[in-house]
C-alpha cells in the first residue's frame, strides 16, 4: 500500500524469518558487523542521535537508556515480547515477518553495553512464536551471525502486568510477576541484580536499519521528536482491520480512513482508542493529529503500543469502558492498595453506571478515585487504568449522563 512506509516489514512474506541466510541475502547482519567495528561510545552515540525512542509505550530514547548502564562483569539484554495490551499484535507480526532483525538488534545492544547474554520474554499465548524464535536463533548461531552473543527465549504465562519491565524481570527469575520499586532502574540493577537493558521488540528490530543507513537518515523519517516508523494494529469498526507500518508523522484520520478504508457498513465514526486498552478515547475533532508520541500526548492521549480501536456511531461507550474496567481489575497484581482496591471500585462503579443505577455523585467519585490512582499507584498499570474512564467522561459525558438515575 502506497500510504505505508515499510522498514521493519519491508521483506514481509518474502523471506523466511527462521532462516538467517534469507535475511543475510536482503542485507541482514550488516548493521551488527558495523556496530562491532565501532567503539562502544560512538555506537551508543549513533543510536542516541538517531532519535530512536522506545516502542513499548514509554517513549524513552534508546541510546540514552543504554548510556546509563554502569560497568559490570555480567549484564543482560532483555527483549519485551509480552505484548499483553489488548488490540496489539505488532510484536508478533515483527517476529513472524522479520525475527532475524530482532535478534540482530539485540546483539547490537549487547555490543553497545558489553553483554553476552540476551533473553526474549515471550507471552504465554504465543507458543508458536517461541518455536519460531528458537529456530531463528539456531539458524543465526549456525551461520555465526551472532558471534558470541547468546539468546534464550523465556515464556510468560498470561499476566498483563509482566509487560512492565521490573515485573517481567521478576517473572524471568521465576517469581510472581509483581513490579519492583524504582529506583534502582533495571539499567543499574535488573535481572538477577545486574545491569539489564529492557527494550521492546520493535525498538530492537529498528536498530539494524539505523546502523546500516545511518542515524541521520533515521532521524529524518517521520516526526522529528519521535522519528522512524511505527507498526500499528487496527481493530474495531473499520473495513480493513489489519497491521500497517507508517512513518510516525502519519495522521490518525488517515489511519482510519485511508489505511483502514473508513468505517464499516457505511456508518459514522464515534471514537477511537489509541494505545491499547489503557489508552484514551479520542473524539472526531482530534483526528487531525499525527500519531507520534508527543502529538498524541498533546491531545491527552498516548501512542502506547500502537493499537487503534475504532468505534462506530452505534457503539455504547459506557458498556465498552465497563468491560475495560473488568480487564484492569483482573490484571491488577494486587501489590499496592491504590490499584488493587481502585481497579475493583472502578469496575464496581462502572457496572453501576452501565446498569442505570448510578447518580452524578458516582461520576464525581470515580473521577476522584482516578486522581488518586494516577498519583499513588506503584506501576503504570494502576496509573493508566482510569484513563479510558476519565477520557470518555470528558469527551462522551452525555453517554454517561444518559444512563444516570434522574437525580434520585
Amino acid at each position, binding site marked *: 500500500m502506497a500510504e505505508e512506509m515499510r522498514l521493519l516489514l519491508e521483506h514481509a512474506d518474502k523471506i523466511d524469518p527462521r532462516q538467517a541466510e534469507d535475511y543475510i541475502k536482503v542485507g541482514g547482519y550488516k548493521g551488527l558487523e558495523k556496530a562491532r567495528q565501532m567503539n562502544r561510545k560512538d555506537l551508543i552515540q549513533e543510536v542516541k542521535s538517531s532519535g530512536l525512542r522506545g516502542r513499548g509505550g514509554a517513549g524513552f530514547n534508546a541510546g540514552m537508556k543504554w548510556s546509563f548502564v554502569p560497568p559490570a562483569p555480567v549484564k543482560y539484554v532483555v527483549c519485551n515480547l509480552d505484548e499483553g495490551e489488548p488490540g496489539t*499484535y505488532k510484536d508478533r507480526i515483527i517476529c513472524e515477518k522479520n525475527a532475524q532483525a530482532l535478534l540482530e538488534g539485540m546483539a547490537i545492544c549487547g555490543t553497545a553495553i558489553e553483554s553476552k547474554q540476551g533473553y526474549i520474554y515471550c507471552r504465554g499465548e504465543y507458543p508458536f512464536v517461541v518455536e519460531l524464535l528458537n529456530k531463528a536463533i539456531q539458524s543465526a548461531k549456525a551461520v555465526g551471525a551472532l558471534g558470541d552473543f547468546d539468546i534464550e527465549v523465556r515464556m510468560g504465562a498470561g499476566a498483563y502486568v509482566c509487560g512492565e519491565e521490573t515485573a517481567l524481570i521478576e517473572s524471568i527469575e*521465576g517469581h510472581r510477576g509483581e513490579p519492583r520499586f524504582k529506583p534502582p532502574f533495571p539499567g543499574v540493577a535488573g535481572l538477577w541484580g545486574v545491569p539489564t537493558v529492557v527494550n521492546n521488540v520493535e525498538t530492537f528490530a529498528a536498530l539494524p536499519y539505523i546502523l546500516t543507513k545511518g542515524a541521520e537518515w533515521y532521524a529524518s523519517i517521520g516526526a522529528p521528536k519521535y522519528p522512524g516508523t511505527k507498526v500499528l494494529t487496527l481493530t474495531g469498526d473499520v473495513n480493513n482491520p489489519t497491521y500497517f507500518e507508517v512513518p510516525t508523522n502519519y495522521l490518525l484520520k488517515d489511519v482510519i480512513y485511508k489505511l483502514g478504508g473508513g468505517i464499516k457498513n457505511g456508518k459514522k465514526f464515534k471514537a477511537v482508542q489509541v494505545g491499547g*486498552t489503557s489508552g484514551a478515547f479520542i473524539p472526531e475533532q482530534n483526528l487531525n493529529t499525527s500519531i507520534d508520541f508527543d502529538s498524541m500526548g498533546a491531545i491527552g492521549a498516548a501512542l502506547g503500543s500502537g493499537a487503534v480501536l475504532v468505534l462506530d456511531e452505534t457503539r455504547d461507550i459506557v458498556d465498552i469502558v465497563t*468491560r475495560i474496567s473488568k480487564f484492569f481489575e483482573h*490484571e491488577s497484581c494486587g501489590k499496592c492498595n491504590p490499584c488493587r482496591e481502585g481497579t475493583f471500585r472502578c469496575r464496581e462503579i462502572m457496572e453501576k453506571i452501565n446498569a442505570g443505577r448510578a447518580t452524578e455523585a458516582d461520576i464525581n467519585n470515580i473521577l476522584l478515585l482516578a486522581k488518586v490512582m494516577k498519583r499513588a499507584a506503584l506501576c503504570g498499570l494502576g496509573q493508566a487504568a482510569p484513563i479510558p474512564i476519565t477520557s470518555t467522561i470528558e469527551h462522551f459525558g452525555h453517554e454517561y449522563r444518559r444512563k444516570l438515575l434522574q437525580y434520585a
Partner: protein
Amino acid sequence: MANYKDIINSLQDKQGGIIEAFHALQREYNYIPEEAITEAAKVFGVSQAQAYGVATFYSYLSVEKRGKYIIRMCESAPCHVAGADAVIRAIEKHLGIKVGETTADGKFTLELTECVGQCQATPVITVNSEPVFNVSAVKVPEILSAYK
C-alpha cells in the same frame, strides 16, 4: 505420559526455570498436579508456598484438573465489540457448561481470557493455545466438532 519428575529435572539447570517447568508440565497434563508443585519447589530451591504462589499468579497456568481441550474465549475490548458475549453464550449452550467448568466426559474446559494477540480476526477463541478466527455463535458447533 512422561513422569512429572523427569519433566522438572530436565529443566533444573535453568536459572529461575520454575515457570518453564510449569509450562512443560501443563503441556503434558493440561494442568499442574499438586505433587508436581511440591517437586518443582524442591528442585528450584523455593518453599512450597512460593511455588504455589507462582503457579496461581499466572492465568495461563492452572492448578486444577482440566479437560483434554481448553477453550479460552477472548473478551478484551476488540473481541467484545465484535460479539464475544454471544459466542460465550453459544459455547456454554452447546457444551452444557458454564465458564470455568469442564464437560462431564472430560473433553472440554471453558475459560475466559484477555487478548490473545490475534485481533485481526475478532472474535477469537483458542483451543489448547491454537487460535480460531472470526468465531460466531452459529459457527460454534462446527468448530468444536473438529475436536475429537
